[in-house]
């Protein structure tokens, strides 16, 4: 947790562009939410775009259609994502393994097509517009959200708060119970853990975190593109978590940084940048199955032991 805080606090000073550092921050949080379920509980979801998107649309619609303040809009976004996660979670945790992944994918695509059709609310394929927030005011404080540095540190504050809560949960007995489910579900059940309840709670918390990432991203972009809900967005979370190191706290942020850096660099050269991302991803999974951060942390632990 202190490492994550330090890295993210310094990010705007080392990243090549301000836009990139905001993306690393927000997609890192998204991948962290996904990692909670995949890396810590052992459930591979292919549908986390639904929660990222629910957060973005929840906050966006509150801002654009209902004139809710920015702070309230974030809460609404997170709440909508949490509710959706409760729904999708309750259905999908009934199946296991690849079936679980397929159910999450199918339900998330359902959400995508629903948003695609509901043009009055979501703007359909043009995306949701008209939610520009330029000044953040909360009580006596007001901040200029158009200033990149101010913007970054406001978002940073939200991300840190979420990460702090998450680290509490992971260090608490509940975090141990999640690991027990990941390591051996049948033994966890025999020991007296209510495995279904643990999975459902993990699923909902994961959805809340991804929803926060989505809400903040809506605020950051001032638009919610329909692609936010597309299954490629779910794939982003999977790739970032795997690249950085599933089941580690910093891993998803490292993964997000690597992925977005590659995208930045290679998309200058060629429109086929995704080819290079694919190759690098394959190499990473083959030679560093524990991810970049997972491998480094593993080395460090072995050298100390």
């Amino acid at each position: 947790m202190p490492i994550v805080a330090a890295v993210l606090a310094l990010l705007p000073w080392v990243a090549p562009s301000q836009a990139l550092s905001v993306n690393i921050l927000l997609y890192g949080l998204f991948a962290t939410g996904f990692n909670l379920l995949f890396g810590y509980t052992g459930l591979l979801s292919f549908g986390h775009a639904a929660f990222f998107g629910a957060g973005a649309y929840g906050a966006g619609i509150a801002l654009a259609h209902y004139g809710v303040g920015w702070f309230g809009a974030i809460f609404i976004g997170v709440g909508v994502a949490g509710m959706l996660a409760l729904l999708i979670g309750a259905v999908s945790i009934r199946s296991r393994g690849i079936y679980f992944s397929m159910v999450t994918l199918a339900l998330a695509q359902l959400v995508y097509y629903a948003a695609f059709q509901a043009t009055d609310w979501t703007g359909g394929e043009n995306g949701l517009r008209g939610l520009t927030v330029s000044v953040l005011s909360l009580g006596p404080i007001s901040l200029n959200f158009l200033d990149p540095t101010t913007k970054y540190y406001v978002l940073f504050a939200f991300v840190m708060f979420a990460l702090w809560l998450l680290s509490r949960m992971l260090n608490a007995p509940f975090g141990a119970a999640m690991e027990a489910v990941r390591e051996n579900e049948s033994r966890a059940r025999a020991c007296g853990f209510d495995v279904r309840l643990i999975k459902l709670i993990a699923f909902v918390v994961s959805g809340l975190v991804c929803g926060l990432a989505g809400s903040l991203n809506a605020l950051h972009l001032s638009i919610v593109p329909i692609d936010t809900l597309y299954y490629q967005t779910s794939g982003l979370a999977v790739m970032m978590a795997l690249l950085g190191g599933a089941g580690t706290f910093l891993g998803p942020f490292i993964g997000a940084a690597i992925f977005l850096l590659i995208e930045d660099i290679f998309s200058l050269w060629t429109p086929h940048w995704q080819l290079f991302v694919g190759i690098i991803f394959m190499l990473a999974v083959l030679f560093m199955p524990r991810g970049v951060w997972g491998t480094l942390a593993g080395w460090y632990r072995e050298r100390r032991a």
Partner: protein
Amino acid sequence: MILSVDCLVKEYGGFVALADVTAEFPRGQMTAIIGPNGAGKSTFFSLLSGAIAPSAGRIIFEGANITGLPQFRFARQGIARSYQITNLFPRLTAHENVRLACQALSASARGDLWHDRSYHYGLAETADACLEQVGLLPRRLIEVSRLAHGEQRALEIAVALAGSPRLLLLDEPTAGMSPEETKQMMDLIARLATERTVLLVEHKMKLVMGLADRILVLHHGRLLASGTPDEIRADTQVRRVYLGEGRSGRG
């Protein structure tokens, strides 16, 4: 009676794994369940630990009907089991394996989302006490996958002891053990049985004859006989299907 089962049946499709078993288990006694391979011993155990639900019949534990409850409820009622094939958390330490089992049975700790794990230090102490009982305390910080087979078998017992269960189900605890390890394990089981009710599934009949208070013999999913070791030894039916087979081969 701490436990009684009434007309218990388990069918898979058309195959009857356990047919109409009725039995009572007195508190504080050690009962051994024996029978050849495929006799339904493991099915019986899975039913008693709630891992599978019976097709028909009832399971009464301490006066309460617990038939059909989810498995974690069985554990929380005070029924713990060990497995014939080692079934632990392989990438976690011996200590963490037992601590998790303690946590699962502690109402205040298991759902705690807020406090650090060390806040519930009582669980760690209980876990170490369980490890000490099976002689694994010096190995507490070793990852399970690096423990020797005999040590993993002992850890199975320690995990089952975590919530101080009133009914302990041991499924072939000596499976795959050397004669020396087997002797140690049987001594351990004898010690544990002085404080709680133990049900023991065992393939090797000789081992349980000197140890158990009562013996149930299963054969083709049916209860063939039950009684004291002497009665079982004298039973002609048992001699025919089980002991006769034992004399010509292993046993």
